[in-house]
């Protein structure tokens, strides 16, 4: 038996969470270092997984592990990654150290608050700092497990369970900026946390009905129910398992609903701006760059692999919803007055692109979408974290409160600009390639939708550049004059992210190499070939 690399990658942050939680209340700095250490250890393990992963292998899943878990439910503890999964595990492990570093001071007791000794009278053993970092690591562990699970039930368990630490992160550690007083902050953020949880829980419970339905279907045909992706795929290929068209569609809808809430897809998106607006910037990054990726990833792996026919059946509607997401998210981003909500709506627009790419059912579209998941994770992290640094300096989330920042804090403004340009998919930065691939992939099959979606790029330029212009250029506003520039810790967060954006923008091959075989396999499951070019090639040559 080989070393259980994927389990180790997931267990490392989980152990870290326990270790951080065990650090005594007074030693906040130690807790932070422990958290950073464990997130880096996770990154190392994920890097080993990336290296050990062989993109040219014939196996659908690599680094597999399989153990008995709940035999009565037909559930096994089965892990394994395809190219898409391993890249996303890598993305998660990559971003969390930056999240930890960026959130270094976010859970400190507010300045001027009573010190630990007096606080223990009113607050008992309440240890927010330890809690904050433990929860982040908890989320990381569960996200990695849901990327690596190849058993539907196992996936579902972590898909649902990750909501709980996430919920405490949003509700327990809100952004103090932008509210009149502590009371309003508390009300707003618990509203955001509850909204986040109820939306996702409702989606998850509907998926639970579909998961049970899937079990009943497999139990009917195979004698004993199973949740193993591979077993189900084999049984379907051999004709042993046949799902009637109607059942398949219902099950697909149950799964898709949960993922569409998580992703989020219009019109199930409304929890995201609240959650991202009210949480601290690092947590917002965790939501949009890491947790939400589980939704789009699951569409690829579960919806398409388990229910290929129903996926094709639902494609037209989903494409329309995706285009609405792109345009609606972008338009609302243009109209936002709050920086964090602006990034949230921009993300909704970008998730529209990802879903568009997945359901265009072309190889360019899907590898573009997968690449987009990675690039969006990095670019949003860069933009949102810099925005968080900006907001923490001024104590306001309103765009109108800023102006002329580039004169007082040029590095901050510069990095903000690069993050923004990545968000609007400037050629040379990573997101450009993915967005281009998605649009090409969509256009080759659905030209009209491809064209409409392109409008989203124009709007992206609008909301990013207007945001930059209003906050960074022009006369220096009152309250901004003495703004310090980025500190060493903050630079440590931003510079690597920007370097990655540039690197992947110029040379995306390391990632696409991983992704492409998995995408081809998905397409063969769905039984779709790329459309033939419209211009008959031979005729062109003959005309010469």
């Amino acid at each position, binding site marked *: 038996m080989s070393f259980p690399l994927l389990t180790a990658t997931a267990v490392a942050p989980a152990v870290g969470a326990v270790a951080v939680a065990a650090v005594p209340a007074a030693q906040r700095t130690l807790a932070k270092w422990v958290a950073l250490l464990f997130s880096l250890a996770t990154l190392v393990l994920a890097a080993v997984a990336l290296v050990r992963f062989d993109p040219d292998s014939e196996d659908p899943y690599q680094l597999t592990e399989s153990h008995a878990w709940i*035999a009565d*439910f037909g559930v096994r503890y089965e892990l394994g990654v395809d190219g898409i999964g391993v890249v996303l595990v890598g993305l998660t492990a990559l971003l969390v150290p930056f999240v930890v570093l960026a959130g270094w001071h976010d859970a400190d007791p507010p300045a001027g608050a009573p010190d630990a000794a007096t606080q223990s009278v009113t607050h008992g053993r309440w240890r927010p700092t330890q809690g904050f970092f433990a929860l982040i690591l908890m989320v990381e562990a569960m996200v990695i497990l849901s990327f690596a699970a190849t058993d539907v039930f196992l996936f579902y368990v972590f898909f649902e369970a990750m909501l709980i630490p996430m919920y405490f992160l949003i509700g327990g550690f809100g952004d103090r900026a932008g509210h009149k007083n502590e009371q309003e902050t508390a009300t707003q953020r618990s509203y955001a*946390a509850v909204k986040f949880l*109820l939306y996702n829980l409702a989606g998850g*419970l509907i998926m639970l009905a579909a998961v*049970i339905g899937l079990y009943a279907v497999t139990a009917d045909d195979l004698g004993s129910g199973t949740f193993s992706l591979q077993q189900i795929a084999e049984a379907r290929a051999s004709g042993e398992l046949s799902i009637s068209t109607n059942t398949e569609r219902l099950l697909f809808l149950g799964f898709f609903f949960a993922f569409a809430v998580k992703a989020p897809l219009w019109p199930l998106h409304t929890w995201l701006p609240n959650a991202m607006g009210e949480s601290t910037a690092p947590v917002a990054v965790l939501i949009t760059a890491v947790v939400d990726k589980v939704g789009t990833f699951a569409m690829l792996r579960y919806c398409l692999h388990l229910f290929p026919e129903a996926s094709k059946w639902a494609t037209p509607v989903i494409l329309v919803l995706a285009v609405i997401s792109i345009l609606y998210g972008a338009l609302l981003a243009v109209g936002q007055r709050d920086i964090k909500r602006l990034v949230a709506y921009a993300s909704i627009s970008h998730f529209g692109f990802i879903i568009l790419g997945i359901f265009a059912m072309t190889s360019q579209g899907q590898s573009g979408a997968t690449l987009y998941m990675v690039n969006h994770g990095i670019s949003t992290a860069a933009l949102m974290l810099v925005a968080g640094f900006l907001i923490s300096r001024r104590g306001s989330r309103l765009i109108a409160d800023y102006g002329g920042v580039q004169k007082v804090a040029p590095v901050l403004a510069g990095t903000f600009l690069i993050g923004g340009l990545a968000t609007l998919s400037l050629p040379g930065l990573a997101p450009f390639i993915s967005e281009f691939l998605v649009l090409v992939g969509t256009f080759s099959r659905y030209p009209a939708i491809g064209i409409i979606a392109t409008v989203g790029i124009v709007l992206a330029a609008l909301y990013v550049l207007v945001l930059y212009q209003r906050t960074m250029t022009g006369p220096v506003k009152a309250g901004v004059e003495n703004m310090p520039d980025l500190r060493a810790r903050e630079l440590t967060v931003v510079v690597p992210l920007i370097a990655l954006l540039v690197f992947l923008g110029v040379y995306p091959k390391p990632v696409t190499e991983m992704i492409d075989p998995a995408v081809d396999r998905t397409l063969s499951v769905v039984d779709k070939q790329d459309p033939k070019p419209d211009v008959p090639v031979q005729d062109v040559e003959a005309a010469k």
Partner: protein
Amino acid sequence: MSAVADPVTVHSLWTMAAESPDKFKAPDIEYGQLAPTLIVIGAAIVGVLIEALLPRKARYGAQLFTSVLGIAAAFAAVIGLAVGDYGTSKARIAAEGAIAVDGPALFLQGTILLVSLVAVFTFAERRLDPVAHGNRVDSFAAQAAAVPGGDAEKEATKAGFTTTEVFPLLLFAVGGMLVFPAANDLLTLFIALEVFSLPLYVLCALARRQRLVSQEAAVKYFLLGAFSSAFLLFGIALLYGYAGSVTYGRIADVVDGEVADITPALAQTMGNDALLLIGGAMVLMGLLFKIGAVPFHMWTPDVYQGAPTPVTGFMAAATKVAAFGALLRLLYVVLPGLRWDWRPVMWGVAIVTMLAGAIVAVTQTDVKRLLAYSSIAHAGFILAGVIATNEEGVSSVLFYLGAYSFVTLGAFAVVTLVRDAGGEATHLSKWAGLGRRSPLVGAVFAVFLLAFAGIPLTSGFAGKFAVFKAAAEGGAGALVVVGVVSSAIAAFFYIRVIVLMFFSEPRADGPTVAVPSVLTSSAIAIGVAVTLVLGIAPQYFLELAGDAGVFVR
């Protein structure tokens, strides 16, 4: 005169007794297989003797010892029977057809005994209430007979009286509960029902604080319980009229049309379907009342709120286990032939119970009432498994009951810890910021709430998945959909409490968390441990419940 006029009759009476001894055979009682019940009832009687004979100071220790020992011995007996294959291959009907000893009965008895053991710990807790006149006191009235607020009450408190009668009362209730799911004829069912209900009515009235509320709850419970018992008894009479027997197997045979010999006295009524349907419905009503299913749930919130919290926890956990056991046996053994008649009705009951419990709970402001409505919603979830009418249905219900009862006990044990000057602070507004003030208590309660909500990695999820899976396989897919919708609604109010505990600022005049003795601490610890173990590694217990899934007839 008659002796002179009719000497033959007298003679024949005598001779019959003398001549055919086999007609009056002494009943054959399998003491070994009935040991769990007998041990608990025996311990209860010892408890009564302790009350009568020992000096007041010595009673508490003696009672606690007797209760724990009795329940533990009974549990050991259950294990012994299970190991001796009495749950599977040697399953049989004992005590002249009155009691079934089979897998479900043993599983449920084991569950009830474990639950009761934990409940004894919470009953015996004496560290929470402030010391009164130099005496440590528990949650129960100093002297139940003293008028609330009267002089007698003051004197009793001053003298340091405590109601140690609660232990024998608890044991009698447990004894009844052990028989209830094992009853194999309707009269045994009824007697078991009364044996466990009457002590519970009394226990409900015994709160030390807010005695009037407690007594009101007891009266309400008693009156409604008496109604439901009357329905049950009437139903039994009608079923007897229909089948000419009260034994489960015999009634089932008549329902299936396998019995030809009609008892002459009942020739008019036997086989009359009207009697069967009305009688069956009335017996079901009696059981649904105990389960707390809508529309027979009205007593639940008031009684749960008014009763002393340890009693509420015990009642909510153990009664539900016993009553669902009896319901399962009735539906699966007596009335399987009537499946097509009761299934639609139970569908309706399950749907209404799930939805009503979840929706009404949303507006509650008292934590005990909240848990009461949540228990109604959970009764609905379990009913979905009952309706499955397959073997998975039985085992999933068994598993759910085991999982749910420990979550419930633990949750109510936590409620006993949160106190202010007036005793337990059950109003939800007082719980604001509790998680910040006492992170451990807040976290533990959050675990229980998440288990109630059915979040993965807790026992609540495994249980919910098991019953919904059974329901889906039993062709009740629509129930599963209603189930997940009501779970979503229910999640809202569980989450609301968590929000309140963790995301609200603590109130300056908020309650304090009392530091319990090892008794309540271990009760809560057991609750958490069971919740997590059944959530993360449920396989062994699912197998146990699966092996116990067959009724003997």
